[in-house]
């Protein structure tokens, strides 16, 4: 019984580490996909504009400033939002567990 529970505990810790790795890989993949999509959107918009537009310094500066833009911000925002969901889930499950354990001790 004790050995089985210890193995389950070990499996849970291993699963935590594995999920962290999978999450990092998924986040990197998503960053690449979003960066490519943003670049594609910028290129499509740039191709649809007239050449006269680029002689305007303000618009040219605007497009030039779009080139080195940090394209990982959307994924960071989504990752932070998912982290909030994770914290909320942890909070709710821990509250439920504490309530269940306190009922067992009565």
């Amino acid at each position, binding site marked *: 019984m004790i050995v089985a529970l210890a193995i389950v505990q070990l499996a849970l810790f291993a699963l935590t580490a594995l999920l962290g790795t999978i999450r990092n890989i998924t986040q990197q993949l998503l960053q690449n996909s979003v960066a490519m999509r943003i670049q594609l959107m910028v290129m499509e918009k740039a191709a649809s504009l007239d050449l006269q537009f680029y002689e305007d310094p303000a618009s040219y500066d605007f497009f030039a400033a779009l080139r080195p833009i940090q394209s990982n911000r959307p994924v960071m925002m989504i*990752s932070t939002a998912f982290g909030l969901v994770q914290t909320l889930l942890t909070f709710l499950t821990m509250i439920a567990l504490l309530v269940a354990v306190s009922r067992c001790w009565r």
Partner: protein
Amino acid sequence: MITLQIRICQGVRTRLSWADMGMMGGGGPSMMHWWAGRRKKPDTGQANSGLTGDPALEQPPVPEGPKDLRGRWENLKQSVSGTTAALPRVLRLVWDASPATTLGLFVTTAIAGVIPAAAAYTAKLLINAVVQGIAIHNFHQPDHETFAQVCACSPIGPFQSIQFSASA
């Protein structure tokens, strides 16, 4: 006249004329001089960008935030409301980029949120089992497992029970 524009610090351009350096006109070093260009304001003077302009762009000045507490609180409220309003659009952008990867990120995050409670419950069961084992060992309490249960659980249990019956 070939003119080199050397950026020596942020926002200040120094123009170095090759003719002034004497490389084209044959003048001596006394004719070489530097003259520093004025700091250009973005909305005044001749445009220095565009297709025919300098490809290197000056970074826009970073606006300084408010110093007082009320201004900082207003800034924080504005940033929080702006982030909240922009979140659905950002989510749509990320979802359109890769739905499967977005779903995978959410699922891994959700599973990682449930694991601490599962680990705590397993730890509770483990501690209870260890305490029960210590109590059985110290106070010589009876073990709940009977001989029949041990024989049923063990793969060689039936043979052991037959051997036990034969020896008895």
